[in-house]
């Protein structure tokens, strides 16, 4: 016999303002099975919760219905209340009479009637609830960080600091990411390498951190606390354990005409290479597309000069399988391709460069040893034009609709550095808006204007026309002067929009983590859970979640690490008990459920059944792995024999709700 208690909340005047709560409590008190009915100003307050607890004890309630705000708000609260009073926490149902009733209806009569219907629907459901207990699963005390840029490095260091093992998977031969390519950082102008490389070294020396460089994630299986990940270690044709990073092979390699990707192809390197001097791990890698030995079997110079005998032309890709409790995505970004912007002549003239290319051109380890020279004729540029928002805030097909966030600041930085080093160079910045929200950011931009004399002109550049004399004629509208300006520039720098790395989309599919239309990972809540993916056990760090500058990236990286540590610190995870289960007597073994399950939670087992004629028979029946099942219910509908049902949302319960609404 069901003994149901009904608790109607006033929520101050939020509910009581448009719903006659007394009438609701009275009407619901007459519903079959209801033995107790009460109303109270704030059910979620301690006094309100005590009211519930006492009623459960005094009346021996078998189920309770709380008519209050959305279950998304306080379902967890009232479940705890019930559990504290000794009632199974899944014997609680919430009737949403605030968001879905009192707040949207103005007429008291209408709202009260609806509240009663919602209340009796919840009563009909709770009468069919069954006590559920959450099952627990162990947590593998090891984290995986995908991406070895500043975001991944910071997350890994913080997790390792808490005493947990961390693996970093980085697709390039070295960790460091985009920050390693940057020359100086705003707004303090300290050199990026000087602050990044100590962190890289920390990663390499920390015994809790293992770096899989030149590796990619191949597949991800499992669930929060227990992921199984296969990692492909790409063949670098050099034995990492033997190579000392002396660099002799890179000097002797005859294939010197290989584009240097670390310098964005602005100069050349050898086919066997170490990306940059402070690379971690400092191990050579052979570029198979250019190496003569790998392509034609002729050469072998590097193998001859290597004293450590580290070169191995026969090395193959290697698959490693590891188990992790949590996965952090830190896949980062790239500047967009500018092929769609013919008007800026990026593909026509080598003197039109992107901002990241300018970083390399100005870097002491870059192609010109730190002297800013025009790429075309290696002369000193006298006039430089910066174009902002190239591809950002652009709703056409080749652009990105969002603001890339970092361009205003790095352009101010570039302009300032150029004016500082070469005072004879005139610098023009064409902007739409200058966006500088951040600590000391606006002051930094104002310094560029006021102290360094950078010319800021409001208006987007319309066209860049390469001239026969090698100059670049820039045409733009000065919107404040209301006139068109022409500038004869030596170099044009385009602040290209940034986009998530191309590897992020397939990775999201592997992780079943959701992404927005721009391929940024979605967070579990845009304000309150910014570093977690909606998929449990997946965390987000850095630009993979949205454009960010370095301080923000580091802050988010540490936040993600804190969340991971919180997860790894648990010995067991309680799983959601609202999962599917099959009635083996009804299951006909058709595999329909197995095919629709997005998590692979359903498998088939052979089981012995006693038949009516006292014989036994082996039948193939579905079996649900409760730890893997997420409780979507796709299988319950696919099942033709009705064997599959979902705890907490059973067929009978939903039917009862339908009946109660239509009564």
């Amino acid at each position, binding site marked *: 016999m069901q003994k149901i208690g009904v608790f109607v909340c006033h929520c101050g005047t939020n509910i009581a303002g448009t719903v006659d709560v007394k009438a609701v409590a009275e009407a619901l008190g007459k519903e079959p099975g209801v033995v107790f009915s009460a109303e109270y100003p704030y059910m979620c307050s301690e006094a309100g919760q005590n009211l519930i607890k006492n009623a459960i004890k005094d009346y021996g309630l078998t189920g309770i219905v709380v008519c209050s705000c959305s279950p998304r708000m306080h379902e967890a609260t009232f479940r705890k209340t019930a559990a504290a009073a000794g009632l199974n926490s899944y014997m609680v149902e919430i009737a949403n009479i605030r968001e879905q009733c009192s707040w949207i209806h103005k007429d008291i009569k209408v709202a009260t009637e609806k509240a009663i219907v919602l209340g009796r629907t919840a009563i009909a459901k709770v009468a069919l609830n069954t006590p559920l207990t959450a099952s627990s699963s162990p947590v593998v005390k090891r984290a995986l960080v995908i991406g070895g840029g500043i975001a991944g490095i910071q997350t890994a260091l913080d997790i390792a600091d808490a005493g947990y093992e961390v693996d970093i998977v980085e697709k390039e031969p070295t960790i460091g990411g985009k920050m390693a390519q940057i020359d100086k950082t705003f707004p303090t102008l300290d050199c990026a390498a000087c602050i990044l490389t100590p962190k890289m070294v920390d990663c390499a020396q920390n015994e809790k951190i293992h770096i899989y460089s030149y590796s990619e994630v191949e597949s991800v299986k499992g669930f929060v606390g227990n992921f199984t990940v296969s990692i492909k270690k790409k063949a670098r044709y050099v034995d990492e354990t033997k190579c000392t990073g002396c660099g002799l092979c890179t000097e002797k390699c005859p294939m010197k005409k290989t584009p240097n990707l670390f310098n964005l192809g602005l100069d050349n390197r050898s086919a066997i290479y170490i990306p940059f001097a402070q690379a971690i791990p400092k191990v050579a890698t052979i570029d198979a597309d250019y190496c003569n030995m790998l392509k034609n079997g002729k050469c072998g110079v590097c193998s001859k000069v290597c004293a450590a005998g580290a070169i191995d032309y026969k090395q193959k890709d290697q698959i490693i399988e590891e188990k992790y409790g949590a996965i952090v995505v830190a896949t980062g970004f790239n500047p967009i391709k500018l092929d769609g912007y013919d008007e800026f002549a990026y593909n026509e003239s080598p003197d039109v460069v992107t901002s990241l290319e300018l970083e390399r051109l100005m870097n002491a380890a870059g192609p010109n040893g730190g002297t800013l020279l025009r790429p075309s004729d290696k002369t000193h540029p006298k006039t430089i034009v910066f174009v902002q*928002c190239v591809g950002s805030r652009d709703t056409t097909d080749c652009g990105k609709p969002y603001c890339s966030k970092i361009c205003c600041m790095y352009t101010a930085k570039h302009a300032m550095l150029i004016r500082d080093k070469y005072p004879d160079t005139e610098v023009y910045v064409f902007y739409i808006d200058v966006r500088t929200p951040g600590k000391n950011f606006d002051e930094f931009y104002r310094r560029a204007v006021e102290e360094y004399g950078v010319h800021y002109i*409001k208006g987007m550049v319309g066209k860049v026309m390469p001239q026969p004399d090698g100059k670049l004629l820039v045409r733009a*509208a000065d919107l404040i002067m209301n006139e068109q300006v022409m500038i004869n520039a030596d170099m044009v720098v385009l602040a290209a929009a940034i986009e998530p790395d191309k590897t992020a989309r397939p990775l999201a599919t592997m992780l079943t983590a959701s992404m927005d239309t721009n391929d940024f990972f979605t967070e579990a809540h845009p304000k309150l859970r910014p570093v977690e993916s909606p998929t449990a056990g997946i965390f987000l760090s850095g630009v993979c979640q949205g454009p960010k500058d370095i301080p923000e990236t580091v802050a988010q990286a540490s936040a993600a690490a804190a969340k991971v540590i919180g997860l790894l610190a648990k010995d067991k995870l309680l799983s959601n008990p609202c999962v599917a289960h099959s009635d083996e007597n009804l299951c006909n073994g058709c595999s329909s459920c197995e095919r629709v399950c997005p998590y692979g939670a359903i498998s088939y087992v052979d089981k012995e059944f006693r038949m009516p004629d006292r014989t036994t028979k082996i039948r193939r029946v579905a079996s649900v792995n409760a730890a893997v099942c997420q409780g979507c219910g796709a299988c319950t509908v696919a099942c033709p024999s009705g064997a599959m049902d979902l705890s907490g949302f059973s067929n009978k319960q939903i039917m009862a709700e339908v009946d109660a609404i239509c009564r």
Partner: protein
Amino acid sequence: MNNNLKEEIIRTSGVNVLKCMRCGKCSGTCPSYGEMEYHPHQFVYMVEKGEIDKLMDSPSIYKCLSCFACVERCPRGVEPAKIVEAVRLAATRRQGGNHLTAEEIPCIVDDDTPGQLLVSAFRKYKK
């Protein structure tokens, strides 16, 4: 502020002026910029403010070459040239008949009118 005219311009051009983010790339790219009293970005802004009469009285509407560079380059897909064309059409309609006849054209055309404008006018009116 002329709301009827504003709605007419927005309807005939099919342009959503609210999409404009005021970057001025249309004016930066306009080859007729120097000839015009009101420039492409001003057309968009003035339509938004409802200042259509000023535009209709300005010779700027006949200086637009209809080269569609602004339409091609606008990062927000606003299509300023279509607004210019719509204002031009409104100006023509204000003069009386709804259509230009072939006989009327020689009287309007002077030597300064760009040839491309005529082509654009025919494209517009043949429909």
